[in-house]
């Protein structure tokens, strides 16, 4: 029994429950448009995304966020959906070199854009230095916010190097120093319910080569 149960992943269980919910939902009045078929299908549009170096052409309901496109269409589920309203940062990815909330942007607005997700930063056999530092410093507990934290952390160090000022920069006419105070302020868009913040700050400091 243990073996058999082990063959079913958590994802399969979630899929099954979602299908159940969809069947139950189709009985309600909210799905009339779907039942009427193609004529009332919601508008779709095509978009080509370059995700982790690979071009993918997608035909999407225009409402699809970049987050849902990555998870449900490109099948890269490393990027997580937390609040889906830009408040928690779990969905953070790097687009054309800058970190953004993938839940608050439409996939069709990203024609030709280069998207880097947690899967593109490193792999289990070849971790990105920030991933390795998170492991070394226990920069997580449950791990749900971690892909967003790591994408954000990698981009934060680049932002400081590029001279982007922050709220804690004492003199905005000068470049910001690479300090943990700067890093902590810049990470405020990534919430961790487990409260691993101090370990995340240590991981970032290690990668940046400064004292935590």
């Amino acid at each position, binding site marked *: 029994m243990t073996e058999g149960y082990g063959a079913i992943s958590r994802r399969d269980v979630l899929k099954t429950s979602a299908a159940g919910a969809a069947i139950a939902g189709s009985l309600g009045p909210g799905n009339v448009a779907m039942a009427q078929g193609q004529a009332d299908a*919601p*508008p779709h*549009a095509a978009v080509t995304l370059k995700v982790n170096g690979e071009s993918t052409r997608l035909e999407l*309901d*225009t*409402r699809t*966020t970049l987050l849902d496109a990555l998870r449900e269409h490109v099948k890269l589920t490393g990027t997580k959906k937390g609040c*889906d*309203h*830009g408040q928690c*940062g779990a969905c*953070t990815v790097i687009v054309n070199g*800058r*970190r*953004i*909330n993938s839940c*608050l*942007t*439409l996939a*069709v*607005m990203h024609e030709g854009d280069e998207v880097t997700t947690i899967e593109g930063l490193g792999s289990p056999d070849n971790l990105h230095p920030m991933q390795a530092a998170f492991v070394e410093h226990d920069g997580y507990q449950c791990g749900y916010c971690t892909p967003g934290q790591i994408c*954000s952390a990698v*981009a*934060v160090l680049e*932002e400081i190097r*590029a*001279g*982007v*000022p*922050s*709220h804690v*920069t004492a003199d*905005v*006419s000068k470049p910001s120093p690479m300090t943990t105070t700067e890093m902590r*302020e*810049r*990470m*405020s*868009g*990534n919430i961790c319910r487990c409260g691993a913040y101090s370990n995340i700050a240590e991981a970032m400091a290690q990668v940046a080569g400064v004292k935590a």
Partner: protein
Amino acid sequence: MRPFTYERAKSAQDAAVKAATTPGARFIAGGTNLLDLMKLEIETPTHLIDVNGLGMDRIEPIDGGGLRIGALVRNTDLAADARVRKDYGVLTRALVAGASGQLRNKATTAGNLLQRTRCPYFYDVNMPCNKRKPGSGCAAIGGFSRQLGVIGTSDACIATHPSDMAVAMRVLDASVETIRPDGTTRAIPIADFHTLPGQTPHVETALEKGEMIISVALPKPRGGTHIYRKVRDRASYAFALVSVAAVIGKDGKGAVALGGVAPKPWRVEGADALLPNGSKAVADRLFAGAAPREDNAFKLTLAQRTIAAVLAEAKA
């Protein structure tokens, strides 16, 4: 989210024409506020006009001094621009006090001006709200009003404008440059750009149907000490309870505007002249005619103390 059709605008005028002639159309740029509201079905456009491909993403000097900021310049890029940091420090300070790094990377200059209030009753579709549903009433009046407005409000709406950037632009006397569907352009002083609610709180700006922001112009630098002081419930990534934008010269004269207290960046030119007289004189003038609620009367005291802190910092 309700279904919508989507197109990429070909030119600024094309976008304005489409917005004026397509029912249910809205512009989308950064999308960070609009998509949030679309998910909640507070905004229900049936057509989106993506303006991101139109350029308008540069910051250029204006002949005779000043800077012209393209409508699509991202908040991060505006805050980081060397000329802005040197000559308009209050603007950089205000920008980095707002939102999160991820949001600032996407949010645009025009979108920041046009963002909607964060009044909790505007966000709760089960509650009456004259801004969301004209004529339905205001649940905020008599409700939990700690975050809400104390001046410039009306008996129909007590929402605040949530922007930090706009408060700095108000103290800098910026003007908002637009294009209309017929191709004509105009410059709207930022003082007149946002409108007070009166009995029509759903009308928030002076923009006409289809009219689109193309840039924001800053007048030539006026020197002085630039300060943006924001007071909020946590140290980062929260909206202002009160914020103070100020540009103050060595002689103690200057300009001051407040955020977090009114439906628009709150500046009273008569209060600027009182800056050498200290925070009480300035606050009394700024808040003449204020209508605070029990939950937010503290904002008057907090604003005065924040002005005092800003004046002390300017003197130091």
